[in-house]
């Protein structure tokens, strides 16, 4: 810290230099009496020192909420969100996922979480006026390999998903060029990725979305049951790095999480978030939950839902908590063209006919042409 820049009596600055104090952080971390002892200054002088250093450290004055609402401070409140590309899902989240902060999507295996991640990687590439951010995405895989076939399928089907956009626009974007895929098999690789490679991509403006699939994978596997403290420490380092990146570059971070089973009844030592009837809870416990700003849960339901000629197993997307959203749910399905919400009033059948849409292990979606009971023969997809 350059002490000369501070608006202080030169005598105080000289005392600070003599005491060999190097940074503003040191000054602010020491209490008044400690600084007095260190610099041999009087109480009033130390008070001036604290105030001057604090003023130099905090350059931004307070802003009013009205200024934020009017969009006068885009660095604090960007004023828009990252859309999913589906009106129903966006309505659930009041516009889409927020640009600053960690959004978590938790669910059982096969619920369709990776599909959400892939869809966001595509929707981020549209310009801002169409709900995107005009930039690419980085997808960090910690468990399985990246579902490249499914991504290609989704890219091919984008015009069908985004029917509200001009076809020329959709065709002009080279989607696969802007998605950066990172495979991190262990914690060390993940930390290198987050601390070195992703900041480079972000600072060059190449990406404006980070998807981590999944968070639980590494942290559950690498630590034994009794190493909770160690695990928590790594988890906090990881999440604070993501948090910092998200706020510095106004980049949404989507973390996909697994779930754990709830075997005992209500447990006072575990927070249920009010999800009493749920058999599963998001993994990684309270330490991780404290870092998350928006928590979403995805559940597979029974039955089947149709839209046009396709039908699939319905999922329920629920907002568990968010600062700006009520506890709400919506039905959605994983279709050929991507994840789309089902507005209330669409056809939902009670009895479970054999599934028409299958989510394969490699992430690809295969349609089978078995007609539902009593329906007309389904056409070719």
């Amino acid at each position: 810290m350059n002490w000369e820049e501070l608006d202080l009596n030169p005598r105080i600055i000289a005392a600070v230099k003599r005491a060999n104090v190097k940074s503003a952080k040191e000054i602010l971390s020491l209490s008044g009496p400690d600084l007095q002892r260190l610099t041999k200054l009087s109480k009033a002088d130390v008070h001036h020192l604290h105030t001057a250093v604090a003023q130099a450290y905090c350059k931004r004055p307070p802003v009013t909420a009205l200024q934020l609402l009017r969009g006068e401070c885009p660095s604090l409140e960007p004023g828009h969100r990252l859309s999913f590309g589906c009106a129903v899902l966006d309505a659930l989240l009041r516009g889409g996922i927020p640009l600053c902060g960690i959004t978590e999507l938790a669910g059982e295996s096969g619920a369709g979480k990776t599909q959400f991640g892939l869809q966001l990687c595509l929707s981020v590439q549209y310009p801002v006026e169409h709900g995107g951010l005009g930039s690419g995405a980085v997808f960090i895989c910690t468990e399985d390999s990246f579902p490249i076939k499914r991504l290609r399928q989704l890219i091919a089907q984008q015009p069908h998903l985004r029917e509200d956009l001009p076809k020329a626009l959709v065709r002009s974007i080279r989607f696969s060029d802007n998605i950066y895929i990172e495979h991190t098999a262990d914690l060390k690789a993940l930390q290198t990725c987050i601390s070195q490679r992703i900041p480079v991509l972000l600072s060059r403006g190449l990406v404006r979305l980070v998807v981590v699939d999944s968070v639980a994978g590494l942290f559950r596997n690498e630590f034994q049951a009794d190493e909770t403290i160690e695990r928590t420490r790594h988890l906090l380092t990881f999440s604070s790095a993501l948090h910092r990146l998200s706020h510095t570059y106004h980049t949404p971070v989507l973390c996909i999480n697994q779930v754990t089973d709830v075997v005992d009844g209500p447990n006072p030592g575990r927070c249920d978030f009010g999800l009493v009837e749920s058999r599963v809870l998001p993994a990684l416990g309270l330490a991780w939950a404290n870092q998350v700003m928006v928590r979403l849960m995805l559940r597979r339901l029974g039955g089947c839902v149709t839209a046009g000629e396709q039908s699939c197993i319905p999922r329920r997307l629920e907002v568990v908590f968010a600062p700006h959203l009520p506890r709400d749910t919506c039905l959605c399905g994983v279709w050929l063209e991507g994840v789309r919400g089902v507005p209330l009033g669409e056809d939902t059948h009670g009895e479970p006919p054999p599934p028409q849409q299958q989510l394969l292990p490699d992430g690809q979606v295969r349609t089978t042409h078995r007609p539902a009971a009593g329906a007309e023969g389904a056409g070719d997809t």
Partner: protein
Amino acid sequence: MHRTIASLPLAPSVKIKLTSAGFDTCADLKDLRPLQLCKEAGISQEEALEVLQTLRSDDGAGVASHAGGAGAVSGGLTALQLLQKEHALGDIITFCSALDSALGGGVPVGKTTEVCGAPGVGKTQLCLQLAVDVQIPVCFGGRGGRALYVDTEGSFLVQRAADMAHAAVEHCRVVTQDAEQQAALKDFTVENILSRLSLVRCHDYVELLARCYLLPDFLTKHPEVQLVVIDSIAFPFRHDFEDFSQRTRLLNGLAQQLIQLATEHNVAVVLTNQMTTKVWNGQSKLIPALGESWGHAATQRLILHWEGTQRLASIYKSPSQMEATIPYRITEDGFRDLAPPPFPTAQPTSSGPAHSVQQRKRPRMEPLPS
């Protein structure tokens, strides 16, 4: 009053000079001016001043009023004066009338209150609600003040603040009865509410410490600010800290600064804390984060928690209120009671908005059946 000079905390030479000049007890020195004492006892003027100040601070309130303004240090207040002062300061309502009555009116101004809870239980919602409620005009039962919101987690979303402000304005519009309230309502609009809510964002603990050093000046320049919210104080202190003793030291210093701020500038300071799991005798339970010593930091502690699907607010620690647990809910209008009290009848009620809540306009959205 009858204390001997020899027992006063003064330099021995001064004491000898005083006693040799004929002064024995404090009563002898009571009515003297410094210059008179100086001449009588043969001590210097500074020493005379010091003697008289020691005398006054020793005697407290009685002598302070007696000695008038000349060089008197602020003597202590009597308990009655303190009670009157506390009543004058008042409380900030939370719009949940059950919680307000359990707290003795609301979140007290001039004290620090800590709100602890698991993620999603409603801490930020309560803080936003208070930031809107502090601005309710005095004729409606509010404080007519401003608020400063220090956000360390990035969870302040202005959309939500605007929703709550809108609901508060609507509520006041419904309960408006006389001309004074109508006049105040003209000024109480969503834009004005948001313009009186200042936001500061801190990205790490050093920035938070720096902001707290700047708060006294800010509050002196903006005396209308009656609420300072720090949401949350736990977040920046829970990672990147290998040295826990340093963390404890910093937190203690911060706590003292905030208490001083609250009393000197007559603001309510509300802090948000996270929860952590503690394993005790094989059982685990949730306790507030930041350690044991932080438990002593705030004057009052509220713990928000779930019990099944019901959200509960427990007054965990308070010097003046009884321990109580109150159910509440979060609606799209903000922090509210569990069930809305009945619609107010035609007779005007004298109490403020907390006792005459209007029915909500839209029902809460229920989860879809699976």
